[in-house]
């Protein structure tokens, strides 16, 4: 039958290249997506995703079979992204006063400025949504992202973020409330199932 992620990691620990390739294929998109939301930059996101996979490979033999791969992976990836942000902050002259959101905002705005069809409505909508998400405080942004894009359950999000359920619930609700007025005009008309 289709191998689970957990089974793949077991094989990876044995040096199974094909299993590692399969895992990469499965998770590349989600990894880049998640890192992008964290870091706001495509290149940085790809770099972070690669680093996360390298860490997974190296620690495959130590992976606990009882932990779900997805939470394990998002934890690793989250750590990589946070490390990068910290390094980024240290590198800039403004040091500790930089908020993650501001850093990302700059990146996102920068990206948006580079897009060729800036005046196309669709791209404007995309940029507006991106900016809105980037404007959220880090915890709210991460919690909402994990929920809305990665579809994790609250308990899984709590595990990935190292928080408790109450905090996760609050962050998601506050994040949505903050985004609601900004995204009101972008919601599609059709009903999803």
């Amino acid at each position, binding site marked *: 039958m289709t191998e689970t992620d957990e089974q793949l990691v077991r094989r990876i620990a044995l*040096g199974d290249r094909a299993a590692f390739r399969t895992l990469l294929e499965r998770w590349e998109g989600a990894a880049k997506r998640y890192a*992008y939301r964290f870091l706001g930059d495509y290149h940085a996101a790809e770099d972070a995703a690669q680093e996360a996979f390298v860490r997974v490979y190296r620690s495959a*033999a130590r992976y606990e079979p009882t932990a779900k791969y997805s939470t394990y992976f998002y934890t690793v990836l989250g750590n990589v992204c946070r490390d990068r942000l910290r390094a980024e902050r240290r590198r800039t002259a403004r040091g500790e006063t930089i908020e993650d959101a501001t850093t990302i905002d700059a990146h996102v705005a920068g990206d948006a400025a580079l897009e060729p069809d800036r005046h196309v409505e669709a791209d404007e909508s995309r940029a507006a949504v991106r900016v809105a998400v980037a404007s959220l405080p880090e915890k709210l942004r991460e919690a909402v992202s994990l929920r809305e894009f990665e*579809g994790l359950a609250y308990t899984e999000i709590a595990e990935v973020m190292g928080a408790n359920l109450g905090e996760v619930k609050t962050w998601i609700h506050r994040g949505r409330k903050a985004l609601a007025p900004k*995204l*009101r005009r972008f*919601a599609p008309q059709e009903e999803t199932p």
Partner: protein
Amino acid sequence: MNQGCAPFEHELSAWIDGELDPSARAAVDAHLHACERCRAEVRELRNVGRALRRWDVHETQHAPTPGFRNRVVARLGGLDAGGTVEPPDTRTWRRAAVFAAAAAGVVGAFVWASSHAAPGTAPDFAALDARLRDVEHATVSRASSGAATDVPPGVGASGHAAPAVTLESIERIGAVPAIVGEPTARESIAPQEAPGGDPWEVRADGMLLRDAIGDYEQFLKERLRLTLEERIARVERREAGGGSTAAAPAPTALAGYLSQADLSATRFAAFERVQVWPIEVQPAPKSARTLLLEQAIDEHVLEIVENAGGAVVAENTDLKGRPVLLVAGDVLRGGRRDRMLREDVLLAPGRRVSLPVVGASAARERTSYRNFTRSRLVAPVDLRALVAMGALGSDVSQHDVDDAINASLTVLGSPFGERSLENLWTNAELQREVSRYADAFKKRLDRPGVVGFAVAIGSNLVGVEICGDADTFKSLRDRLIRSHVLYALSRPDDAVAGVTPPESEVRALLIAAGKAIYDEPPTAGDGTLAVFRSIDGRMFGCGLLDGPRVVHATVFAGVPAGGAADVASGRRGLRRGPEPIHPAPRDPGSAPDRSGPASPGGVDVR
């Protein structure tokens, strides 16, 4: 928001996400029913998610690229991952090692493992093994000295009732024989040296691979230890848990139940291609209250969701304390691809488990639609047999299942439907034809005391479906009949010609099932799974028990010809069947029964 809304305001997001416990959810349900302001708030909160997913950065910008994989591998120090050399196929020799171990006596494998263990680091398998055998031996001797009728003679004599360490359990755990069977392969991996010069192994940090293997061995041994301890605990729980009858190991309870089953006294003639015999068990078992999948979903007490990793997770939120029964072959529609349940699952209230499923359709593009909301279909029985063979240790891959599904769809599917098993439900013409058979058999089976049925198609006995009580059977009856009829309709005419098998053949099958070799694989939900097969492997089956009580079991009289058999024998690819079925309604008056009378003096009751 007015005053009355305050307690609910902060629950609304969690309510949308289905993360509230049942009583909290009910409270919010009630409030929303009455409060338009909060309903509007819910809509707005939901729109956030919709907007995010609608205007999220293009999926293509995060789409997988070959370059990405290559770069990851490059960072690991290996060569370009574009090569196609696969790791050696370890399956054949590992299987040989396992069979050798089995022939030498299963203990051998574990003694082997412990003798290779580095002193002081590995768990003491010899001791664990001895303890396990003590516990199991005590169970067997109690079962055979106690209620002797429960223990089939063949099983008791050989002392292998409820085998704890089986071929299958070794293979499931993984590579213990692989490690101990190939010490030379391991030692040969050294820096700057590799068989075949595979650059993957030849690296400056070839140490990494060797260390990884060493770590992995340790890791596997720990897993093995945990598994053994769990098995011991399980057996000990069974010992402690019940009286003399409850002490009988669960798989043996199924064997006993099947031995007691018999055909009911009334005779019937075959209906077109298919013959169905009702089965009863004396004394009539007590009734059990379970919810089925569809009903549970309709009543909103069962939620099935696909998570980011692709696992399908089900949760039973019933407040009335009813367990939910999902049957092997149930088709779930939703998620990134439709799924089919691999084995029966019993889900107690409040439980949340990852379902054992196999893909039942082509994968869809990414969708935000994660919930599985509908299942009307049980897969055709040949597909269920194929998956059951996988549970018994045969090498059945998703690829094999896809082939079998394609074969079914080629013959039975509507040409306009999605490439999904669910297509068999949405094909209205097909379902009308299936209903004709189902209605005919319903009358035969709708009698008190009937707990199951045996099925033959043409001259081939297909198998037996049986439940632990009449009420459960009544709930499952229609689905199970349809599963067999779908298979029957997929068979070409010449394959189903011939005389209906005699009743003695059905009885022989039930007796053989009682005497088969039983095993208890790990179970996803509550209850215990039992799989069994005859010595020659031709007859096999699987069942679900709730403690000592049988819930449902299927006995396959052989490998059903068609999709499953072709796949099992290694023939891949689409089976070119007869023309797809767009059946014209048959004129009931004119169609003759192709099979002969079931037995002399048969009564045709339809």
